């Protein structure tokens, strides 16, 4: 059986094609101002890598902030639901699943059967999401992908205001004026954000295994800070930014199976 999951995020759309329980294709496109068009592009790319066509798909499930705009979706699944599905699929022992995207962060608590029991969300504030790191990288005049490796060179962190992107920016500028080193400022940015995420996760309780999903999971600097803060190892899949789409594709598979019966 072949299904697809489409994750229409605020920054990019991700598509995963699933064939009998394994991923056979992935596609990604920037959301821009037309998420529906981006979804088509990402779908085309995923189908091409899988060497399949749209008619091969028995079910398509959409998720993400703009899921309502998904073209040709048969169903939708909540972002928390997709996180739980993907987290358990990738790491069966996962009990705490954290997903950090460009503009939102979520933590999902699963029981022993891998069923979601509770979740917390940070939305409406950029300070607890990928947008925070992006803005700080801009203020520091460092490429986003260089922030992580740079921060790992720091021996200590300079304190910055982590509660607001706008104030964080001015703090970074002040530190630059004070001639603090860039690695130390970068480390401060990740420590600050890890603080916020950690307090969000603590509202659910930190139950191992802890899994980190979403684009921000690719940032080695943030991961190092979060591990330090939580004092626990964190599991990260190979393609963390595609986890939402994977969760949707898994949902699509169960729906297709059910309708076949």
């Amino acid at each position, binding site marked *: 059986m072949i299904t697809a999951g489409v994750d229409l995020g*605020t920054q990019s759309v991700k598509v995963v094609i699933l064939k009998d329980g394994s991923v056979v294709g992935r596609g990604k496109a920037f959301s821009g*101002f037309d998420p529906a068009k981006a979804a088509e592009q990402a779908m085309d790319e995923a189908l091409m890598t899988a060497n399949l066509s749209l008619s091969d798909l028995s079910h398509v499930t959409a998720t993400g902030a703009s899921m309502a705009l998904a073209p040709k979706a048969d169903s939708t699944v909540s972002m928390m639901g997709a996180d739980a599905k993907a987290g358990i699929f990738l790491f069966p022992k996962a009990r705490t699943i954290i997903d950090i995207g460009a*503009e939102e962060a979520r933590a999902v608590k699963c029981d022993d059967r891998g069923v979601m029991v509770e979740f917390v969300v940070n939305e*409406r*504030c*950029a*300070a607890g999401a990928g*947008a*925070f790191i992006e*803005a700080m990288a801009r203020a520091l005049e460092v490429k986003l992908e260089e922030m992580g490796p740079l921060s790992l060179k720091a021996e200590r962190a300079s304190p910055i205001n982590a*509660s*607001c*992107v*706008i*104030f964080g920016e*001015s703090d970074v*500028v*002040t530190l630059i*004026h004070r001639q603090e080193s860039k690695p130390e400022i970068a480390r401060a940015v990740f420590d600050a954000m890890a603080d916020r995420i950690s307090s969000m996760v603590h509202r659910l309780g930190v139950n191992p295994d802890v899994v980190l999903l979403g684009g921000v999971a690719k940032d080695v600097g943030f991961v190092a800070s979060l591990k330090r803060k939580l004092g626990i190892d964190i599991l990260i899949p190979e393609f963390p930014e595609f986890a939402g789409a994977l969760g949707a594709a898994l949902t699509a598979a169960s729906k297709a199976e059910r309708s076949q019966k």
Partner: protein
Amino acid sequence: MSDVAQKEDVEYWRWQEYHRVFSNKKWKNKDIITAGVDVGSVGSKAAIMIDGEVYSWGVMRTGSNSPESAKKALDWAMEGTGLRLNDLKYIVGTGYGRVNVPMANKAITEIACHAKGANYIWGPSVRTVLDVGGQDIKAIRCDETGRVTSFLMNDKCAAGTGRGMEVFADLLKIPIEDIGKVSLSVEEEPPPVSCTCVAFAKTEAVGLLRKGWSKEKVLAAYTRAMAVRMSNLISRVGLEREFVITGGQSKNIGIVTRIETILGVKCLPTPNWRENGLDPMVAGAIGAALFAKALYEKEQKQ
């Protein structure tokens, strides 16, 4: 083309720095000349008082160096008065950078200073003060002497602060001094924006503009959301009349009018500060200068 490029260079957030001297009163050496220096995150204000009456003040943007900004603001307040640092009997530093006012004899929190300053500007009937600064919002309750009885503040989020407004002025390319008036120029008040985060507002505003909203309408929706936030803070501290607004946003008519509508209470009108020196933006520095006078008198008695 060059015209467009030039327009891109305009810094819409940049507000006018200013200073005033009310020299109808001449200072003499035996006068109690005191100063208050309020180093905020965005603006630095210095006020000089003679025997507890406003004599001069200067308002300028805070640079990256707080001690330097404090000195500059005070120098500006003294400009054209013949006063020198030595003539000032007592100086109180206040504001976010109050520990970085090198010439100050003492530092006092801006909460106490704003309440004191509001009491001086509007008189003893003031009971609730909303101080909207560059990086925080404070709702303060005080008694008839200007003493603080309770307060609440929001210092974790740029939404509604002066800094947030600067970001918005830049984004919509409307000079900061005009945003209040422009926000009121809509025929019908749009619903407030759903998300008050200034970082996200950038994306949300661009989205609304693409949907065909006018700049004025976007600004009105954002200002409305900010006014709702501020009104909630005032309600939480408990609104008691008379009610006044201090800090830079006291000059944003779009904010002031909307807060009045939401709370159903009129603020005491802003005094004609260009004539009498009672500038609500300088309230913190005025309060600090009044504390300086009291502290100096106490010192003399000992």
